[in-house]
């Protein structure tokens, strides 16, 4: 099986490939794999390094199922089913949907895929150019293929679908193009749309009715209209910001909404509901149950990006079903899953864009000194627009330690708001952005361990570059994450002590997974290949002399080496 090992030199020759992150079911993130533990992880060795030979993509998120590993590459996508039972991990089948090249121009700084989801023998995936596709996991045959997003208007499907029972939940992306965000449910068998609810606009379209209550919103009808300048919600963005989750006992679909458009907040006075917040919807009807505005009148394009982690924890003397949400704005929120009530909110790194939560209204108090204006540059806004965490940087929670492991970007930005004019299919942005390390240090990233119950930092492992990869916390007390300079690292979950590291051919922005094969042996898999926002710098034709290139991100990681851009899938295990 491991004959796939090849000299690194050869791998460097592979075509321009893009890498990925993943949108894992939460259960997998905190792997139950217990035979890899703090004591033995240091001896872990590479079992397989597989170049994902695609014309323009590298390994996406991998799914393990019955000795098959499904890998999806970024746009233009390709799905591979690998047979792990064979020593050469040969390809069982390969599926490449027809791609609309225009979508390549819509990736805001990065072309990634959030992966696919496997349910009941079918693989469901969202393509960046707007299709939701169901494949037969055994053969790779297309079961159905529906067009859900209009690429011509800048609308894309970036976040992987969520499969619950016989339903597929998808949400659109494209807030940067002024695409009005929505969430929809499809019939898993046919692809027929069951419902579609918007994230802004009149109550009817948002799905707000009888069953809706929120302690943080005014009791007024049509907030999705009245909190915007006239008609601005129609091009107000608010697409899906991060992977949704499903709360089975409550029957709730909980999802984030993306940032409002344009980024120039002076052009959209008002709270801009229901962008940049958390929605809980009835999974069957799509009707809204509660909404928490995380970044109302979002000044910096954070959206409400950041992982959603349901957990049942001991909270102030009771067991409570909570939702842990480390947000792009640099705060860890702990919410009650059933009501949306914010139980606590603490900044997990240095934040100056906001000054904490207003206790009564539950809304974030912005820092007026850091608001962006037209015709002036606001300097050193921390965190920067890619967010303190979120996107490909997925956090993980380990119930044993009670710690939340947050991959963090410690970046600040200079921002100048600019007048933006809406033209469908072109970016509706309205900002000049320049990102840079914080004033006093060049440690631009870290893996943080956050004590959720105590609301304080347990430990942190600093990195030179922002940490864009997902985190895997295993039951054995080991935490895995990757870095932009290509290290795949294992640290002690309780102390952050480095245990093991491996240098990959490329940056790691993907999601590590752990799985157990039939032989009972534990494996850790991760995709390497620079993608995400960093991918734009390393792979696109970026000129870093322009401090605003890649929306300023290029400036922040101008020392990122552009070499080794091929996508690789690595699988490790104990010897």
């Amino acid at each position: 099986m491991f004959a796939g090992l090849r000299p690194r030199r050869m791998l460097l020759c592979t075509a321009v490939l893009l890498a990925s992150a993943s949108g894992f079911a939460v259960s997998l993130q905190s792997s139950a794999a217990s035979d890899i533990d703090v004591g033995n992880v240091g001896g872990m060795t590479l079992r397989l390094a597989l170049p994902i030979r695609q014309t323009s993509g590298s390994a996406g998120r991998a799914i393990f199922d019955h000795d098959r590993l499904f890998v999806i590459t970024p746009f233009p996508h390709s799905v591979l089913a690998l047979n792990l039972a064979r020593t050469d991990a040969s390809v069982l089948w390969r599926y490449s949907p027809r791609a609309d090249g225009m979508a390549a121009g819509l990736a805001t700084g990065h072309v990634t895929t959030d992966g696919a989801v496997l349910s009941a023998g079918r693989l469901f995936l969202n393509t960046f150019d707007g299709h939701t596709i169901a494949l037969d996991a055994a053969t790779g045959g297309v079961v159905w293929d529906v067009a859900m997003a209009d690429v011509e208007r800048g609308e894309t499907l970036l976040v992987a679908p969520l499969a619950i029972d016989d339903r597929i939940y998808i949400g659109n992306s494209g807030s940067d193009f002024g695409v009005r965000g929505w969430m929809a449910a499809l019939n898993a068998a046919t692809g027929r749309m069951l419902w579609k609810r918007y994230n802004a606009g009149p109550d009817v379209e948002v799905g707000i009715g009888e069953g809706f209550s929120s302690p943080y919103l005014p009791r007024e009808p049509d907030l999705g209209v009245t909190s915007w300048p006239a008609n601005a919600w129609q091009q107000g963005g608010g697409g899906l910001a991060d992977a949704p989750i499903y709360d089975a006992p409550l029957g709730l679909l909980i999802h984030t909404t993306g940032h409002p458009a344009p980024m120039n907040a002076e052009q959209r006075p008002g709270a801009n509901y229901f962008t940049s917040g958390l929605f809980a919807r009835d999974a069957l009807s799509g009707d809204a149950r509660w909404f928490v505005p995380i970044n109302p009148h979002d000044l910096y394009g954070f959206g409400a990006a950041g992982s959603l982690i349901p957990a049942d924890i001991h909270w102030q003397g009771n067991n409570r079903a909570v939702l842990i949400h480390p947000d792009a704005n640099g705060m860890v929120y702990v919410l009650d899953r059933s009501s949306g009530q914010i139980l606590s909110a603490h900044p997990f790194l240095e934040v100056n864009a906001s000054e904490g939560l207003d206790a009564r209204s539950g809304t974030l108090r912005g820092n007026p000194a850091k608001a962006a204006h037209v015709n002036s540059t606001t300097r050193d806004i921390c965190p920067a627009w890619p967010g303190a965490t979120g996107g490909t940087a997925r956090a993980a929670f380990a119930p044993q330690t009670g710690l939340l492991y947050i991959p963090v970007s410690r970046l600040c930005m200079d921002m100048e708001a600019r007048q933006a004019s809406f033209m469908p299919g072109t970016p509706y942005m309205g900002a000049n952005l320049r990102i840079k390390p914080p004033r006093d240090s060049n440690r631009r990233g870290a893996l943080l361990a956050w004590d959720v119950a105590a609301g304080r930092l347990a430990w942190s492992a600093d990195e030179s570059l922002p940490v864009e990869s997902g985190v895997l916390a295993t039951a054995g007390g080991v935490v895995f994450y990757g870095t932009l300079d290509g290290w795949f690292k294992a640290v002690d979950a309780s102390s952050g002590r480095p245990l093991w590291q491996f240098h990959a051919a490329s940056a790691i922005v993907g999601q590590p997974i752990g799985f157990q094969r039939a032989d009972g042996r534990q494996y850790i898999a991760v995709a390497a290949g620079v993608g995400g926002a960093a991918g734009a710098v390393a792979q696109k034709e970026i000129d870093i002399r322009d401090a605003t290139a890649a929306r300023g991100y290029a400036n922040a990681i101008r020392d990122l080496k552009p070499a080794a851009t091929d996508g690789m899938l690595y699988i490790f295990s104990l010897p």
Partner: protein
Amino acid sequence: MLLIALALLACKREARELRTDPPATDALNGVVPMANRINGGLPRIFIAQGSPYENNAYQLGQGKRLYDWFNCKGCHANGGGASGPALTDGRWRYGPDPVSIFLTIRDGRPHGMPAFANRLTTEQIWQLTGYVRTMGAYSAQTAAPSRNDEMQSRPAENRAPAATEIRMPPSR
């Protein structure tokens, strides 16, 4: 002598032609693409007018304004690129000649460049073409625009951005 030389150089760089006659507009739109549709021949009127979209400061300045207004920055940033390729690095996917850039803007390109034929007039597309060419110039034209009154991002077009070395201290 110096003044006369300057005078000759300057002749057309500063005159501001504010209105293009409709027949001239039609003629300017009459780019004949080659079979590959990547580039083509310059319309004869372009040369006949003295190539104003290449060397006239006003037309290039208008192009810079359009670059800002028509959301070019969303994909190409201030020339450094983002989801679209960089324009300041002096490398061109479809070649540096004006016609191919004109066609790129007017008709779009397959990997994400939308067509602007329905958003800009022919004259504006030529202005934008001229301006985009100054962004990736290795030697600055006298008529090239200077910096804008906005956040500093890179040396302006009149400082030959493509000619400067790709190595600068991190701007903080």
